């Protein structure tokens, strides 16, 4: 099978890294080779965060080559644009309806690009929006946004839902398994 490339982006603290782990572990559980890559340290202090996940028969580079991502799963509207060059022609973008102001915007030195989603849509017809804040609230906690988004991604990938739920259940606190299952399903069915 051709390697599937998923690029996840967002802001430090949004749960990007855990989402990447869940996707890679689910791919392994489904019988694929998988690799993922991200950077810890300075990048986590409210900075832009990106995680590359690749799975298939045999994966070499843990990093996706520009122009080869099948899906960009973006946790934050503006961050999508930063990584758009990774998308392959005809690739899909999933955008969480959330804006996190960078310090340059908060202090008035820069403007948040208000029409960013429309500008992305103009270039990427296959753009889906996911109201993560609303769906995670429906699931029971804003902390489940990343699992909602994993659900939205899962619908596009063809790995069975129960494989996803098994991985998610193993990676979240036991008390929150039910809530996260609901979050996954809300994202999947959205």
């Amino acid at each position: 099978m051709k390697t599937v490339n998923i690029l996840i982006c967002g802001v430090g603290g949004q749960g990007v890294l855990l989402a990447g782990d869940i996707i890679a572990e689910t791919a392994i559980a489904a019988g694929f080779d998988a690799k993922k890559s991200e950077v810890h340290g300075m990048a986590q202090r409210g900075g832009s965060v990106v995680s590359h996940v690749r799975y298939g028969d045999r994966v070499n580079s843990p990093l996706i080559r520009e122009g080869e991502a099948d899906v960009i799963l973006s946790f934050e509207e503006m961050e999508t644009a930063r990584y758009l060059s990774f998308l392959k022609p005809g690739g899909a973008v999933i955008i969480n309806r959330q804006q996190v102001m960078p310090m340059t915007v908060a202090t008035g030195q820069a403007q948040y690009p208000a029409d960013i989603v429309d500008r992305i849509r103009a270039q990427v017809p296959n753009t889906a929006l996911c109201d993560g804040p609303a769906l995670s609230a429906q699931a029971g906690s804003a902390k489940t946004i990343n699992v909602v988004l994993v659900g939205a991604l899962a619908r596009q990938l063809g790995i069975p839902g129960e494989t996803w739920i098994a991985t998610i259940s193993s990676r979240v606190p036991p008390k929150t398994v039910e809530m996260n299952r609901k979050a996954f399903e809300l994202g999947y069915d959205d």
Partner: protein
Amino acid sequence: MKKLLSGNEAVARGAWEAGVNVVSAYPGTPSTEILENLGKYKEVYAELATNEKVGLEVAAGASFGGARALTCMKHVGLNVAADPLFSMAYIGATGGLVVVTADDPGMHSSQNEQDNRYYAKMAKIPCLEPSDSQECLAFAKLAFELSEQFDTPVLLRLTTRISHSKGVVELGQRAEHTPAGYVKDIVKRITIPAHARKMHVKVEDRLRRLSEYGETFAGNTIERGDKKLGIITSGISYQYARDVFPDASFLKLGLTHPLPQKLIAGFIKSVDEIYVIEENDPFLEEQIKAAGYFVKGSCAYDSPITGKDKVPITGELDPTVVARSFGLQRESSVQPIAVPARPPVLCPGCPHRGVFYAISKLKLTATGDIGCYTLGMMEPLGAMDTVICMGGSVTAAMGLEKALGPEMARRTVAVIGDSTFFHSGITGLIDMVYNNAQGTVVILDNRITAMTGHQQNPGSGRTLQGQTSPVLSLEDICHACGVKHVAVVDPLDLKATEAALKAAAGHPGVSVVIAKSPCILIDKKFKPTLHVDEDACVGCKLCLKLGCPAISFDSARKKSKIDPIFCTGCEVCASLCPKKAMKR
């Protein structure tokens, strides 16, 4: 059993499977998780060392006793540990001695891109370079065997993308290693000149034997493909090159020092053209070219060798950069959309913010250091002037004073974190006192080693493996170093912090201000959030000078606002607001 592991987790697992007994290391991105994961194994003694030199020396002592020992560090940590590394290269290893260096091409969280393979060459020790998590586990195990077989420390060299990428790893079992016990051997372990001269002869012989070993080592592999193009590579670069050139022939080197010259010569002969693809410095390329294969009529072959004339020497490689180097990257059809930068910032509620606000307000020159608090340089705080290396804040301030006089010293503070102070700030402070310096050192005591992910340190009263230990008092240490003026202040109290800095600067001789308040992320028990009373807010933007991610300015309404998701209720902004507009 198979598991998805990061390179760091796999190194820890491999060392554990090899029966490692003693681990001592100082945290540093991207190496930290190796130590953290080794600390979880009950069969292993693992400790947070005060610095990398200490870590390597503790490991060396354990090796003297016949134990298998490991130390790990970020690339610049090996500069600190270079002294014992070079001595141990002569002394050798009794129990296996493994030194892990995690280099940081691209400088994701470092001050330079030094290529630590050169340390292996300079110290004349073997260097293993894994290219994925599975090899991290395998090479960590092998490193102990090589160390004992060849009587040498072994450098296991990772890079950020090896350390922090995850891949599928087949796990094994632990083979217990029982330390053989200490046997006195002064000719082996006392590096006086008379002994060291003999040691050097052994070291050169060891290198020759290691080079022979490399000729048949299973980690140096040839993958036959198209004969037109042969690629010589190692580490993560192999993975990128494999994706970009799926049909080429490959010589993938796992042991990159010393190089297997016959294997390389044979490979070069077997293909028409050679690309050497490696990150940062031309470590392989220079040695291959120096061996003369590319000179027509010389020992091997006249195939052209392409390396750093095409592959960038600065920055991190990735598949895109490798493809672009050789004109193989199809440029994106997507039109770029410019968006504002999102640099990292001090967290909301970070106690360092109060100190940097005071430094900024008092317009002091601040010599800085390595840690989260380096972010104090960011606007709007803009409260840091220099960063050299761990501990360099204290001594740089002293140098400024010696060059420009006490007037400069009264306008200067050295800013250093608690863990960095224990690491190598103490020696600078002693130097200041001893040499009659005038100056102020601010120790940002947030009770933890925060930047690398919250490790304990000598001031926190807990060891890596959860034992209680004596809490070393920074105050007592400063007093014992001969500092007469030591003040402790709560950095969340802006007025008190400003007053303490002023008082310290006015004090003759060396003064220390300890800004003591725990990192907001230690227990994440935040106070109730604040909000802006819009009737009271006059839009003066003073609160924005704190650079708090929770505070932004609504240009349309001309009012500040606080994002309740980010606010930790630290009240620093409330204490600053002239109109008392920040309310619960």
